[in-house]
């Protein structure tokens, strides 16, 4: 059996057709994790016993005819900042090293209702603060395409797990690009939905006004199906929105005729790697050839998104992370002198450097005398950025953009200079500020063989438009290859040469 060859939907079909049992699918995933994860470190927690018991339960429900969805019985992974009842949830932080949630996130409940089998929890940048998955307290995740490189972050574990075919899909979270950027680095597809589409109940908050859970999978169809499964209007999340449409898979039509696509010229200038630029322009050509109207335009305000983001996200984080105090859950320092010393020691020992840096910055910008100059200024800037997107979406259905200025950096290269790392989020961050949906789709690989993704951004609640564009692009691009090593084990039994469309390494699809 070569479960690793199948997408989530393909596996779901085989499970429903009784070609493979839910337990076999789960076991195959667990075996791959056991074989590969020592190297990649995509997972923080794997609970085989629980997964297999759950698999049997789902099988029974399938046999009884009570579970029939397209993803029924398909194994999955969940980012470790999304609460799973009875399954350790650490945010890759020492401060939550032993935390076992008493409830599951709404998105996880929705998955379970659809028959998902969660194999484990994936590694991430601590509290989702980072772009490389190197700030994890449990060691960095490595990029399955080249283990000397990072997988991106913060959902690096989820993206690496899908890239390494340990699971067909995973949930990630995206506050400033944390799904789309690692998806691009790992050669997988990742979707950040419109703010409010997937409930945040049970997502351990980093920047509450920006956080959104989304799917990470092998292709666009999977992402659409997973989003359909996890999206819901949740009364437990006041910012959850009752949408008019949840039928995201209906957008997979391979038809972009008349679709208006804009490329922000200000995204293509200084700081963008040339190979990535060529990849984006190549993707634009593909869409144009399929009948879309593509042009460049000035989005404006691009350089203000990152500073505004770091004020807002850090401020919210400083407050959201105050609850980790050694009293109700998680890590408490061993030796302390009184209450306040207990707080300080538990938090200082429990949080990593990057988290502390953002808490300090966030506390500072909210402190007496600075609120207007920093926080309100950032919220006003956010309003301007939203307006510039509103203007763009009056003219375009989809904005085509890079997901990141570069391909995955080497391990250890980024953390030394936080500001430089933050600049890497330039193409993803404003999407969160404006609450928009965005998807990253693998495009090609660079000269060194690392994947490049392109990002498609839609107006709020227009997931279907970006899915339509992404799907059409994906059809033209052709099947995506697995990373080398992963590919060799997977490709041996392959009947067709899946890698043909990207055999040139880059731009081979145009």
């Amino acid at each position, binding site marked *: 059996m070569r479960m690793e060859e199948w997408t989530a939907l393909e596996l779901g079909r085989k499970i429903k057709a009784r070609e493979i049992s839910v337990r076999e699918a789960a076991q195959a995933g667990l075996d791959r994790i056991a074989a590969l994860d020592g190297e990649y470190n995509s997972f923080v927690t794997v609970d085989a016993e629980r997964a297999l018991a759950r698999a049997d339960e789902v099988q029974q429900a399938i046999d009884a005819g009570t579970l029939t969805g397209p993803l029924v019985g398909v194994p999955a992974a969940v980012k470790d900042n999304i609460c799973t009842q009875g399954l350790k949830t650490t945010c890759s932080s020492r401060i939550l090293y032993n935390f076992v949630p008493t409830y599951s996130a709404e998105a996880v409940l929705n998955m379970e209702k659809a028959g998902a089998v969660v194999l484990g929890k994936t590694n991430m940048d601590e509290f989702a603060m980072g772009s490389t998955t190197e700030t994890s307290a449990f060691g960095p995740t490595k990029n399955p395409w080249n283990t000397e490189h990072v997988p991106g972050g913060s959902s690096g574990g989820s993206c690496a797990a899908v890239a390494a075919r340990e699971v067909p899909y995973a949930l990630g979270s995206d506050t400033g690009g944390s799904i789309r950027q690692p998806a691009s680095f790992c050669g997988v597809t990742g979707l950040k939905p419109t703010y409010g589409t997937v409930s945040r109940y049970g997502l351990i908050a980093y920047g509450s006004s920006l956080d959104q859970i989304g799917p990470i999978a092998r292709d666009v169809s999977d992402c659409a199906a997973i989003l359909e499964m996890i999206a819901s209007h949740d009364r437990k999340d006041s*910012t959850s929105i009752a949408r008019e449409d949840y039928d995201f898979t209906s957008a997979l039509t391979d038809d972009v005729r008349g679709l208006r696509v804009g490329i922000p010229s200000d995204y293509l200038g200084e700081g963008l790697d040339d190979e990535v630029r060529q990849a984006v322009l190549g993707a634009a050509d593909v869409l144009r050839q399929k009948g879309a109207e593509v042009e460049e335009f000035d989005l404006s305000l691009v350089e203000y998104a990152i500073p505004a983001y770091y004020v807002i996200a850090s401020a919210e984080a400083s407050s959201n992370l105050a609850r980790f105090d050694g009293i109700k859950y998680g890590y408490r320092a061993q030796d302390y002198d009184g209450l306040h010393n207990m707080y300080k020691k538990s938090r200082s020992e429990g949080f990593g450097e990057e988290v502390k840096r953002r808490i300090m910055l966030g506390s500072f910008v909210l402190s007496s005398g600075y609120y207007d100059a920093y926080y309100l200024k950032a919220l006003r800037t956010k309003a301007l950025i939203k307006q510039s997107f509103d203007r763009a979406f009056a003219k375009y259905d989809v904005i085509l953009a890079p997901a990141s200025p570069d391909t995955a950096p080497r391990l250890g290269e980024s953390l030394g200079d936080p500001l430089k790392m933050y600049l890497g989020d330039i193409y993803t961050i404003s999407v969160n500020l404006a609450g928009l949906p965005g998807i990253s789709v693998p495009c090609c690989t660079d000269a060194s063989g690392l994947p490049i993704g392109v990002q498609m951004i839609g107006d709020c609640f227009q997931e279907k438009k970006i899915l339509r564009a992404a799907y059409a692009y994906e059809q033209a691009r052709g099947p995506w290859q697995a990373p080398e090593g992963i590919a060799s084990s997977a490709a041996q039994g392959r009947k067709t040469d899946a890698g043909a469309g990207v055999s040139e390494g880059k731009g081979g699809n145009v």
Partner: protein
Amino acid sequence: MANIISDETIEYVGILAKLELSAQEREQAKKDIGRMLDYIDKLNELDTSQVEPLSHVFPVHNVFREDVVTNQDQRDVILANAPACKDGSFKVPKTVE
């Protein structure tokens, strides 16, 4: 660097955030926050005097619960993660002098 962060500021923010930094971490934090603020000061290039601060991206309002009890006693699971508890309560260092 335009923003110079003093020792007092780091000490003060440490009290607010309940973080205790080592001497080395303090120096690093001063540098990092100063640099970030320099970068954030870029926002001052924008004239936002006519712009309302935008907290929520969508104009959603009035999301309410009805006043109906929906929760049962779940004390045992609530306490299950506590580093220390006693008599059905979370145990903390003495809070009064």
